[in-house]
């Protein structure tokens, strides 16, 4: 990777080309531009924790490794978000396997938001909602995070996930219905 001074890249094509040529400043610019979006996607999918940095690093490493094969059919942002989603889904699978093998799930149940005693600890509405999002099935969680947390349009969400817009809409409806059911016992005051 060649060193370069800080450079301004107004055009994404040029930025991508410089990345392909191994310009360090172009990579720094990519990380700078998209790090907030990546952090938001990962934390939306997995909840807050120290692992966000590790997965975030892996996202940019994957981008770096695949930049020469990236054909530019989608924007860099869409491509990076797709990597972040895929790595988050892998992490969810890993967690499910770990829970299955080591009874971690039983331990986590101790902090379950259904536990009345834990409610006074997690008294923030946003935290309850965030924990509830983690309870959604991965495919519903993904559309919810992209649409409502990352603020992508339904079309962009469809593009990132490579699914039809109609599927995004039906998954979104389902996700909101499930979230509403999960949140029902808390009788949250939304006003």
């Amino acid at each position, binding site marked *: *990777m060649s060193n370069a001074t800080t450079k301004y890249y107004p055009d994404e094509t040029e930025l991508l080309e410089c990345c392909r040529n*191994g310009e*360090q400043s172009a*990579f*720094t610019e990519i*990380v*700078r531009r998209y*790090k*907030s979006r990546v*952090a*938001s996607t*990962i*934390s*939306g999918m997995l909840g*807050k924790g120290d692992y*966000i*940095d590790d997965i*975030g*690093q892996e996202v*940019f*490493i994957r981008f*770096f490794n695949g930049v020469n094969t990236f054909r530019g059919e989608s924007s860099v942002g869409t491509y990076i978000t797709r990597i972040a989603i895929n790595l988050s889904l892998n992490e969810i699978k890993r967690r499910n396997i770990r829970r299955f093998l080591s009874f971690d799930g039983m331990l986590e149940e101790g902090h379950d938001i259904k536990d009345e005693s834990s409610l006074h600890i997690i008294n923030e*509405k*946003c935290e309850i*909602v*965030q924990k509830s*999002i983690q309870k959604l099935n991965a495919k519903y969680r993904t559309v*919810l995070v992209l*649409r*409502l*947390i990352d*603020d992508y349009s*339904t079309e962009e969400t469809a593009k990132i996930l490579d699914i039809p817009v109609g599927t*995004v*809409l039906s998954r*979104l*409806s389902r996700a*909101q*219905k499930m*979230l*509403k059911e999960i*949140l029902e016992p808390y009788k*949250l005051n*939304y*006003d």
Partner: protein
Amino acid sequence: MIKKEIEQLIYESFDRSLSQKEGLILREALRSSKELRTLQKQIGAIRRTVSEIPKSEFKPFFETRMMGILKNRSGQPAGIAELITLSFSRVAIAASIVLVILTTYNIQMGTSGLKNNLLGYSKPNIENAFDPTLQFIQK
């Protein structure tokens, strides 16, 4: 339109623009049902709360750390362990699945004790008991 379809329209109205006909149906349904109005309000509120969840950020100096990692990795060939893992992970998974299937099959089919069934040993019959070559095989 049945209630379920109206509810679906309420959910979708937040993410797409409804057609004139759909809009009319929804407005009419909302006007006449308090339950549907409450649902619309609830969904709107949940969506607002979800979008208000504070955004996470990486720890400070993420770019610097990232560039350090990328610098170290660029030009370096993948380690042997990494290559082996990449090449054989699928084979290992397939072999594990086959092993589980065979073990399950042996347990299901056998009648001569769990250990023997797991290893696929068959129950010795009278011919084997008196077979003079068997002792060499067992050794």
